[in-house]
């Protein structure tokens, strides 16, 4: 095989895309043969199949990717199993410690807390070396994360330390370091959530409030959400092609959820205006923001962002319609109008799709 034919990135994503293309090409070729549009000679077909088999074998050897449809389905099942296993093992570690810690001396407690984290980290390293698919590495990485969370929080309990948001920063760093070291997306999500907690709580403390009340002012989440969304544009992720979409999605979810809450409960805003004015402002911001997300998703080919934008646009629209009409409209009429809006939205998106197809042509 020509070296240029090889997926030249170290990442499994281009390799998976190549495998998917080959599978689709084979399906289409069969269809074309049935329709008598394109029929290769037996030699050509053998050579083509031989080449593709060689490519698939090579990328399957080098990367943990799915080369068949059934493998892809199995992968999803394994991902779910690894997530459930991680949750169960983390809970086991948590409950095991609490069940016996009262019987241990303080140095022993500290030793077990640190040792547990290091042991799980070692397990993650060993399984990452042995298994390309990283299901076990994800599982043990999550257990290591849970052990580290337990480690820091229990030290706080043992020594009666005042709780602070800094713990979230340390947990976030831990999870993100593991995520980038082994390419584990579940750990990336854990790191993102902790980082969101830290940044939002820190922002809250700037206004003087107690850090744990950060959730009571949704505006605390807006800068951290925007920062997350923009992060992939600032930091090069070529070696981690699956990470940017997760940053963008979590950034968008954070921002739109905060806007949605503020659009309905203006009295919990930082702004000292009339709550109705605050709600109106955030509702407009919600519509403009979700429309911008749909546009950005289409423009930069981020399907997940388009979907999230559309979902939030519909939610913003429905909550507004609910505000206006729920009380005075008969329920059948309300839902009829709601359905009508869904059809109008569908029609609008279809027109946009047709136009963009024409532009491409």
């Amino acid at each position, binding site marked *: 095989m020509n070296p240029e034919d090889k997926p030249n990135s170290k990442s499994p994503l281009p390799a998976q895309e190549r495998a998917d293309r080959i599978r689709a090409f084979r399906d289409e070729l069969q269809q074309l043969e049935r329709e008598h549009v394109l029929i290769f000679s037996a030699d050509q077909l053998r050579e083509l199949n031989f080449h593709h088999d060689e490519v698939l074998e090579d990328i399957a050897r080098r990367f943990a990717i799915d080369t068949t449809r059934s493998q892809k389905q199995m992968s999803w099942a394994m991902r779910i199993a690894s997530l459930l296993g991680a949750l169960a093992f983390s809970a086991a570690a948590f*409950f095991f410690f*609490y*069940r*016996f*810690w*009262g*019987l*241990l*001396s*303080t140095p022993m407690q*500290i030793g077990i*807390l*640190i040792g547990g*984290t*290091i042991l799980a*980290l070692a397990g993650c*390293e060993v399984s990452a070396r042995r298994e390309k698919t990283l299901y076990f590495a994800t599982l043990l990485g999550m257990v290591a994360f849970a052990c*580290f969370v337990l*480690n*820091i929080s229990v*030290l*706080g*309990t*043992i*020594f*009666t*330390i*005042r*709780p602070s948001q800094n713990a979230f920063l*340390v947990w976030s*760093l*831990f999870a993100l*370091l*593991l995520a*980038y*070291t*082994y390419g584990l997306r579940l750990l990336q999500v854990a790191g993102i959530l902790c980082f969101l907690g830290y940044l939002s709580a820190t922002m*809250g403390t700037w*206004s*003087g*409030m*107690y*850090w744990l*009340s950060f959730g*009571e*002012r949704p505006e605390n989440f807006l800068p951290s959400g925007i920062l997350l969304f923009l992060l992939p544009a600032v930091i090069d992720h070529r*070696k981690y092609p699956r990470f940017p979409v997760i940053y963008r999605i979590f950034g968008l979810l954070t921002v739109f959820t905060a806007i949605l809450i503020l659009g309905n409960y203006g*009295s*919990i805003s930082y702004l*000292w205006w*009339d*709550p109705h004015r605050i709600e109106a402002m955030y509702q407009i911001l919600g519509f403009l923001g979700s429309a911008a997300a749909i546009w950005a998703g289409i423009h930069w080919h981020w399907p997940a962002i388009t979907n999230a934008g559309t979902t939030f646009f519909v939610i913003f629209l429905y909550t507004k319609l609910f505000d206006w009409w729920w009380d005075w409209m008969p329920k059948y009429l309300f839902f009829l109008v709601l359905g009508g809006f869904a059809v109008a939205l569908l029609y609008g998106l279809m027109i946009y799709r047709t136009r963009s197809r024409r532009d491409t042509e």
Partner: protein
Amino acid sequence: MKRFGKLLVFILVVAANAVILSGVAYNRSGEPDSAIHLTERELSVSRSGEENSGISLSLRWAVQGYWLDGPGWFGREKLEEIGFYCGIPLDDPLAGSRYRNMLPRETFVVLEYEGAAWQEWLAHEEEELVELAAQVESGENTRDYLERQRKNLATLKMTSSRLFVVEVGKRPDELRDQFPDGSRYIITAALVRMRTIEEWDEETDEYRITGLRGGVSRILAGEIHVSRSMRLPLDEILVKDEETEPGRFRRRTGEPRFTASLAYGKRYEPWLTGIQPIEKPGTQ
């Protein structure tokens, strides 16, 4: 990243633990800011059940003057002093939504042990009983109710905490200058809230804010872990409790059964220095 990542994550685990433990060492270094002997009245034993073998002592406290209708010592001025914004006039249409939604702040409080605030509370309770007796005489209340209240007060005198929050402030060193006796006054961090004093307005048909007062929601380091080396007297108490009154929620009605020595360090965080069973009930 792969090579450095493993090293960095290991360094992070070690560094995070080292920072926490050095913070603990710093808190406990030198002379404690406060060293105080409390009893079961101020420190209740809590255990979470079978799934958690740890034992902790929860600080029990009250705020001086909580029985008064008005703001008392913790009024608007004090709230402003610790950073709450009270600049909106009470009759402003926005006052309600702003003051009711004001978020709590972390600040320092002074806890007084068995001092004037405790005496004030006792006097208030005695006064209430006198008033109740007068009501019984005039036929407004029953003798049975009076007897029950007398018994209640007798129990409270034996069991209720004598720790009262008597002052709040942003600067713990200034509070210590104000209350220099570390064996009677604890300075520690707490969560403080703004509360509104409201009354029903017949004209507008809604509650109207007539004043602002502060309230202490929580002492932040109020749950003190008991290490294995100190838990023996508490284990014996818990076993006895379980034998006499099984279940998790029991109300203390008798004399305190242990004393505990607490120290507060440079970061105003506490640790236990000893627990002693009380041999002769009624001595504390």
